[in-house]
């Protein structure tokens, strides 16, 4: 009996979308308002989906305390109230929500072993969201 456990978290961060490989004009053209040199911020909502058989003894896919602890330690405390452009991982790549979504998936993939990581969904605003499921087919 495979069940899929979904958990939502929140953090806030700022970023500026700007590519060193593009001219100033091309950056303005590509990123529009998001290219403002002073940056701007979002309240992100992160949705993590893990899956696995339901443990008969606990009734759980994984203990929520473990998942919450991992996400708090490795993701939320890392990004919350930061300027993403100042972080090492975004020195070479643009801190779009696509790239942030993939980055968070990889952190979970590497470090969270208590259940199978299925998907990361990241809402940049109530209107925009991005999903990454690595090698897994995206389940609807």
């Amino acid at each position, binding site marked *: 009996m495979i*069940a*899929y456990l*979904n958990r939502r978290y929140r953090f806030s961060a700022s970023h500026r979308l700007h590519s060193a490989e593009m001219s100033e004009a091309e950056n303005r053209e590509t990123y529009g308002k998001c290219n403002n040199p002073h940056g701007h911020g979002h309240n992100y909502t992160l949705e993590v989906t893990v899956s696995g058989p*339901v443990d008969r003894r*606990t009734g759980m896919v994984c203990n929520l305390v473990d998942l919450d602890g991992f996400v708090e330690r490795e993701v939320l405390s890392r990004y919350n109230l930061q300027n993403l452009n100042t972080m090492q991982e975004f020195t070479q790549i643009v801190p779009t929500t696509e790239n942030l979504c993939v980055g968070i998936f990889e952190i979970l993939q590497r470090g969270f072993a208590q259940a199978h990581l299925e998907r990361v969904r990241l809402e940049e605003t109530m209107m925009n969201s991005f999903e990454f499921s690595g090698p897994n087919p995206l389940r609807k």
Partner: protein
Amino acid sequence: MVYLTRKAEFSASHYYHNPEFSAEENRRVFGKCGNPNGHGHNYTLEVTVKGEVDPRSGFVVDLRQLKDIMHREVLDAMDHRFLNKEVPEFFSNIPTTENLAIAIWERLETKLRQARLHRVRVYETPDLFVDFYGEE
């Protein structure tokens, strides 16, 4: 294939306890959820069915029938109940959101006639929800 999703809400109480565990193990695994007096949630249930659109009615499923089944099989049994004490599935299974999604799937699956059950999603809170797609 078209997918139709119907929502419903119910409120219930539960607690987590495994009689095979020691008191210390129960405390460690279940924490505050182990309080034997229970605590409650407002659950939101989303039932998704799938099927071909009937050319005469334009429906995947008769929504009234689906609502009736959800009411009879789930809400009448679980709304304003203490899951551990009043819902037979949880006399021996722990009423986690995972087990609740599975129990609801099993209650609905055999009762649906026109459309097939695709997914049962149970929100324990807006920030915690479980999806179950049947045996895979």
